[in-house]
Structure formats: C-alpha cells, structure tokens
C-alpha cells in the first residue's frame, strides 16, 4: 500500500487543476512544485552529503536571471532559460565548490552565505547587464495558470525521481559516506572533493531550473526577490528540515507545509484576523491582522527554532516520533 502512495498522489495532482478551477490554489501549487525542486536540490548537498548550504538563492537567482536575460537581451524565449538556467547555476557552483569545499561544516555554510550576498550585489550593481534594482520584466507566455501548473509539476516530479535515482546509485553511497565520516570515506577510495562537487552541481542544476521557471511564471524578478536570503535560502533550508533532511520525499512534504505556513501568515491566518476584526469591529484586531501578514519572517524564525529543537529530522524523518506522540497505541508498531 505504501508503495502506491506516491503514484496515487501524482494522479491526484494531475487531475487537480482540471477539477478545481480556482486560480489561487493553482498558484499555490505551482509555488509548492517550485519549492519541491529547490528543496530536493538543497537536500542533495545538505541532507545527503552533509554540506549545509545557506545560500541556495545564488543558484535560484542565477537560473532566474539566465532566463530573464535571454529574453531581455537576446529576445529568445525565456523557456530556453529552463535548460540554460540549470547550466548557468552549475557554472556558478563549480568555482564556488572548488574553492570552498576545503572549508568544513559551519564555515562552508558561511561561504555559501557570502556567495548569496555576492550574487545579490553583483545583480544590483551590474546594471548594464542585469538592469540592477529595476529588475527584469518579460511577457508571460500563457494567460492561464494551467500550463505553468503542469510544467511545474513535471519539474517537481523530475526532481524527486532524479534524487531517488542518484541516491540509489554509487553516487548516493558516496554522498552518504562523505556525510557520515569524510575521513573514512577517503580511506575507502572516495574522492571526497570530487563527489562534493558532483553533489553541489546537482543541487545547483535543480535549483537553477526552478529559478528559470520562476522567471517565466512570475514575469518579473529583481535582485531582492530572487537572491533573497530569507525568502529563498532560508526558506529552502526550512523546506528541507521541516520535511525531512536526508529523505527522498521530505522536500515534497516540506514544500507543501512551508508554502502553507507562508500563506497562513501572509493572509493573517487565512483571513481569520480580518474576519474577526470585521465581525467585532475591533481596531486592535485590524492592526494585528496587518502586522501578522508581515510577520512571516518571524514565523519562519520561530519555526527554525522549534523544528531544530523538537523535530530535527523533519516530518518524514521523525515520522515514527510524530506518530508515537499523536497515536501512542501505534507506537509499538512503528518502533520495530
């Protein structure tokens, strides 16, 4: 039964927009799919290979700008960016990894953060190339959200399958070995530098493609949006850790939850506060509603703290723990 779950889910997702015509929910699902791709990428380098990256926005933004600039400067359809976005992101990942993989642990994380910021600054300063703070605007190809939905779905599915395939192969074993004990890995003949590079490039490719798709879908990007530390890099980490670090389906679960959480805050608990304010005419509730909608970063911060403390292996990773907490009678079964 468990084996068919993903398939059933897939079928539901395919039918979804045909049955449920609401553009708002389609939009949310598109975001979820984009985050599945980004989260899967982050999981490869961080969850599976143990090199935590704080700067995946660098790859996302590169992919987005590749797509956007192709359209802006060369008049080529931004869809070509889907292919090139991933490749350009790898072009960024390659020198970065080459130089920075000598750093271990938290220092690599900081270097990735620096990469993020450097990319953002370059995008802002290099106006002739990137239009700077003005950003890039392109004509969306489709009016309806549905084509974007299916393209995003394909991207998400491809990402998950790709990760699954990789992790079952020799590369997968090597990534895990590097994560568990880098010195032992070396003694077993694993060229850790090389495979860290491979892992990073896979992550960059997936994230870059997601960025390119984002450009095509949203039609507008600027450095603050696509190279955002909080909204992209930290969100990617959250998607990874909430869903389940080092699991195949973790990012999918995490993406769903995080987009949900983001919407939750943005709409003030799905309009709860606004509704209550309207109902009671309370000024306080109105103001509270306004604050809450801007407080999603606070929510993210609190979520980081709580997840790390109580659910360090995410929903998928700590599934047994979660089940045990809510369904104590099931615990014995799960523990074996």
């Amino acid at each position, binding site marked *: 039964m468990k084996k068919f779950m993903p398939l059933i889910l897939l079928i539901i997702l395919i039918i979804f927009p045909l049955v449920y015509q609401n553009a708002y929910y389609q939009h949310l699902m598109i975001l979820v799919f984009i985050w599945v791709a980004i989260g899967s990428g982050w999981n490869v380098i961080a969850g599976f290979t143990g090199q935590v990256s704080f700067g995946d926005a660098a790859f996302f933004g590169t992919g987005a700008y590749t797509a956007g600039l192709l359209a802006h400067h060369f008049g080529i359809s931004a869809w070509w960016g889907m292919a090139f976005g991933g490749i350009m992101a790898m072009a960024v990942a390659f020198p970065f990894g080459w130089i920075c993989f000598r750093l271990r642990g938290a*220092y690599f994380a900081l*270097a990735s953060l620096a990469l993020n910021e450097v990319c953002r600054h370059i995008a802002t300063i290099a106006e002739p190339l990137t239009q700077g703070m003005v950003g890039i605007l392109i004509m969306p190809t489709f009016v309806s959200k549905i084509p974007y939905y299916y393209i995003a779905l394909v991207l998400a599915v491809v990402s998950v399958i790709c990760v699954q395939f990789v992790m079952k192969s020799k590369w997968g074993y090597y990534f895990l070995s590097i994560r568990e004990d880098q010195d032992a890995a070396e003694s077993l003949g694993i060229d850790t530098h090389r495979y860290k590079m491979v892992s990073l490039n896979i992550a960059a490719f997936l994230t870059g493609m997601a960025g390119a798709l984002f450009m095509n879908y949203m039609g507008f990007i600027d450095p603050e949006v696509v190279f955002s530390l909080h909204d992209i890099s930290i969100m990617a980490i959250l998607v990874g850790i909430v869903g389940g670090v080092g699991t195949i389906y973790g990012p999918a679960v995490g993406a769903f939850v995080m987009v949900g959480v983001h919407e939750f805050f943005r709409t003030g608990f799905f309009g709860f506060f606004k509704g209550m304010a309207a109902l009671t005419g309370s000024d306080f509730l109105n103001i509270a509603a306004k604050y809450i909608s801007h407080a999603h*970063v606070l929510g993210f*911060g609190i979520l*980081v703290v709580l997840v790390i403390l109580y659910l360090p292996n995410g929903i998928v990773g700590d599934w047994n723990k979660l089940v045990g907490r809510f369904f104590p009678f099931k615990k014995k079964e799960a523990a074996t």
Partner: protein
Amino acid sequence: MEVFLQTLVAGILKGGLYGLIGLGMSLIMGVMGIINLAHGQLMMVAMYVTFVLSHYLGIDPYLSLFVSMPALFFLGVVIQKYTLNPLMEVDSILPENQVLMTVGIGMVLTEIARFIFTSDYKSVQTSYSDATFFLGEISFSIALVISFFIAVGFTLFMFWFLLKTDTGRSIRATAQDKDAALLMGVNSKRITVITFGLGSALVAAAGTVLMPVYYLFPDIGGPFTRKAFVITILGGLGSTVGAIFGGLTLGLAEAFGATYIGMAYDDMIGLLIFILVLLFLPGGFKRLTKI
C-alpha cells in the same frame, strides 16, 4: 598627512569598539565551538534598549549600560540554556544544528524588533553626540573617544576575569578541552550558559556606547554579525587577545577604505574581506578544515 592621521584616529577608535564585539563572539566560539550568527542581533537588541531608555525615560546612554548589559546577559543565558544546550543532546543528521539555531534566533530577534519599533531609523541624540575636540588639526569625536575607553576598560576587565577568577579559568579550561574540564569538575553546561551571557553582555556594551553616534534599525544586526565574524577570524579562532587585534585591524581597514576608496563600495568591500578572511585565515586555517 593630516588626512592620514585623521583616518588613523578614526580607525583606532572604531577598532576598540570592534574589539569588544569580537571579544564576545570569540569567547562563544572558543567555548561552544559554534559561530553565533545572532551576535549582531543581540547588539541590536541592546541598542533598542538604550533607545527606549533614552527616548522615554531620558536616561543617558552611558548610564543605560547598567541596564542593557545585565539585560542582554540574561537574554544570552536564556538563549543558551533553552535553545542551544538542549541541542547538544539531540541527534540529527545536520551537523550545523546549533549554528542554524542561532540563525533562527537572529531572525526572531530582528522581526520582534521590527514588530515593536517598525523599520524606521532611530537614533539617540545627546549633548555630546556631535561634539568633538581637537588635538592639533585632528578632530576627535568625544562620543567615540568615551566609547573607546569604555571598550578598553571592559576588555581589560575581561582579561582579569579570565585569568584571575575561578569562573574565568573554568571558561578557559572548557574552551581548551571540554572533556578534560569536565573531568576536573567543571560544570560545562553552566559554563556555556555563563559564557553566552557574557558574550551577549559585551556586545551589548558595544551597542549601547555606539548609539550616540550611530543609527538604528532592525536589520542592523546582519552586517554587525558579519563584522564580528571577520574580527574573530582575523584574530585567530577563539583567541581573546586576537579578537582585539582583529577589531583594530577591521576598524583601520574600514577607515582607510572609506577615506581612500570611497563609501559607495563599502558593502562590497566588507563582503570581500569576509570572503578573503574565510578563505585565507592566518593561523586558523588548519583548524577550520578539520572541524
């Protein structure tokens, strides 16, 4: 020549302050082995405390030290005790749990500040904020000079504390070898809590004395965390003496950079130093690659 001396003075004065910031982070890094990415945010909190005391109660920033330092010490203790210490027991695939946690805490602190104070720039104006005195042709900002001496004072106090008191020695022992210290009866959990509190209090002092001559907004934490990190690394990981020199170096680098290269690229230069320092650390490199 004048310009050079002026820049030198500015650099040294700022450097003293930076040394204080670096000292706090260096302590934390030495004892806990983690990079406190919320360090700048803690400073931000202290600055807001100073602002509130000044704005609503008319208390002079230098007197606020008596409030902001204990307050931040307490905050640091709480953070370490309830969010960081528990992580030492938790087993997770992600090795950088603690660092990630400090990121989360930094975010929470920043957003709470934004919630309460909005993103508007705040400042504290005192009678001496703009006052300067002259030695020959060189102008000295009185506020910065006072801050410098306060910073030096605290630094010297810290050295006395670490060298001469039992707690201080326990801290140094834990930093050098946690297991050995444990075996000698040091309560390492308590030490980590105290150390984080101390580190927070020190950066609080820096923030408080900086208020008269700086501006404040919620996102100010980020750049200062980065600066703190650069200072700590420049001085050699976990080295308290080194942090002082790191602070002076950064202060001078920024001053000369501002004078001779220009303000526009200020951010990028800071970032560049951050990256170079990360890659080419003097003396701390080996430790980095094997952590």
